[in-house]
């Protein structure tokens, strides 16, 4: 019993006693419905059989008889590039050798790992970016602190040090934001996703966010006072705060915030009149660690803000998306359930 259970077989199901036809049907269904692309190859790499997913991925209904190539993989799966409907995807290929009709054949299983590879590559990039992000403000803080110390020793009065102290505060703020974003994401990842849903008046949160940032005069606001959402107030604050700082960082005046009811959701839009987001970058806008660099260095962002927005909006039963068009300003939107 334990032995059978260990092999992942349902208790009570004796596979050896199953009629051959039943077994064949089962195995065929496993092969046909498999989410992986599975190829049976002759010893020289000619395709003997391809399951539907393999035919889809490799873009041919008539693979049998075509040369896939003699497949090579080491201890680790081999990585392949495949243009699926013209778009590059990454697959891992695992090989098994077996005998079929008296000859040796290869079974090649191809699994789409594009999303994982993209995350790994982005993560590698981010580790290096994050190190720089931490280094830059730390270097500024250290440098200015040393100057201040020297000046203090020379008896220069504190009143002359205000500019330098402000610089320290600004750089420390950058570090805090980076640490905050990383912490928020790690909490979301760790499954600490408690949502304290409450009735929240959007205009209140927006007004407070604008006042706190000291930018109330820069934004044109059309958010009716009666609009109430059912969401975690901290999350609403973060959603709005992220979009506002995004507009200030990357956009141009005039900045406009609007909100309106759309069926059972309230949609908030933050519009600016800058260059907008290049169409090529749009698909990656809400991905973690993605940050558009227009030639030079990106302005002070962590590359995490929009990923946080997207995850928080969905966590509260809404969504986040982008509606702007290149050259005509950016429009960032999120929706939350009506209270």
């Amino acid at each position, binding site marked *: 019993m334990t032995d059978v259970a260990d092999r992942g077989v349902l208790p009570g199901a004796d596979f050896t006693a199953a009629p051959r036809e039943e077994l064949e049907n089962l195995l065929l269904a496993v092969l046909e419905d498999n989410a992986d692309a599975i190829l049976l190859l002759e010893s020289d*790499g000619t395709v003997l059989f391809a399951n539907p997913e393999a035919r889809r991925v*490799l873009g041919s209904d008539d693979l049998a008889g075509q*040369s896939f*190539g003699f497949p*090579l*993989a*080491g201890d680790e799966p*081999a990585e392949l*590039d495949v*243009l699926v409907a013209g778009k590059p995807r990454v697959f891992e290929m695992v090989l098994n050798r077996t005998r079929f009709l008296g000859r040796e054949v290869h079974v090649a299983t191809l699994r789409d790992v594009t999303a994982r590879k993209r995350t790994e590559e982005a993560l590698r990039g981010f580790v290096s970016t994050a190190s720089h992000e931490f280094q830059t403000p730390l270097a500024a803080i250290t440098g200015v602190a040393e100057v201040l110390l020297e000046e203090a020793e020379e008896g220069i009065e504190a009143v002359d040090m205000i500019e330098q102290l402000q610089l320290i505060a600004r750089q420390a703020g950058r570090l805090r934001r980076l640490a905050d974003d990383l912490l928020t994401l790690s909490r979301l990842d760790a499954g600490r996703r408690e949502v304290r849903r409450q009735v929240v008046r959007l205009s209140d949160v927006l007004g407070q966010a604008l006042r706190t940032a000291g930018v109330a005069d820069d934004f044109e606001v059309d958010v009716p006072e009666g609009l109430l959402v059912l969401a975690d107030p901290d999350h609403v604050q973060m959603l709005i705060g992220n979009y506002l700082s995004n507009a200030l960082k990357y956009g141009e005046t005039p900045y406009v915030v609007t909100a309106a009811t759309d069926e059972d959701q309230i949609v908030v839009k933050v519009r600016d009149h800058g260059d907008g987001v290049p169409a090529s970058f749009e698909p990656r806008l809400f991905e973690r660690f993605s940050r558009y660099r227009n030639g030079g260095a990106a302005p002070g962002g962590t590359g995490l803000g929009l990923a946080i927005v997207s995850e928080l909006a969905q966590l509260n039963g809404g969504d986040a998306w982008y509606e702007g068009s290149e050259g005509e300003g950016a429009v960032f939107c999120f929706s939350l359930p009506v209270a």
Partner: protein
Amino acid sequence: MPALVLYVTGGSVRAERAEQQLRALLGGLDEVSLDVVDVRTDPGAAEEAAILATPTVVRTDVPLRVIGDLGDGQRVLSALGLNGQPVARAEEVRSA
């Protein structure tokens, strides 16, 4: 003279790795030519050669091709009939 064509999807780390590995491998062999084709910039050539995925190495003088990890040089050479064995043998195996 044996002639090889390496088909890659340009810009990927796999393309770069495959080309490096193959060039290093062929560095020790005389008289093996190598062309590299990017299936994204030259889709016609990839279609003509019926390339299904990359990296794929095609031997153009005899019908042999390999696909996948080119890290094990001896296996690559053996599968392409370049390990000193007469090429005719590989063809015989195919037609057998």
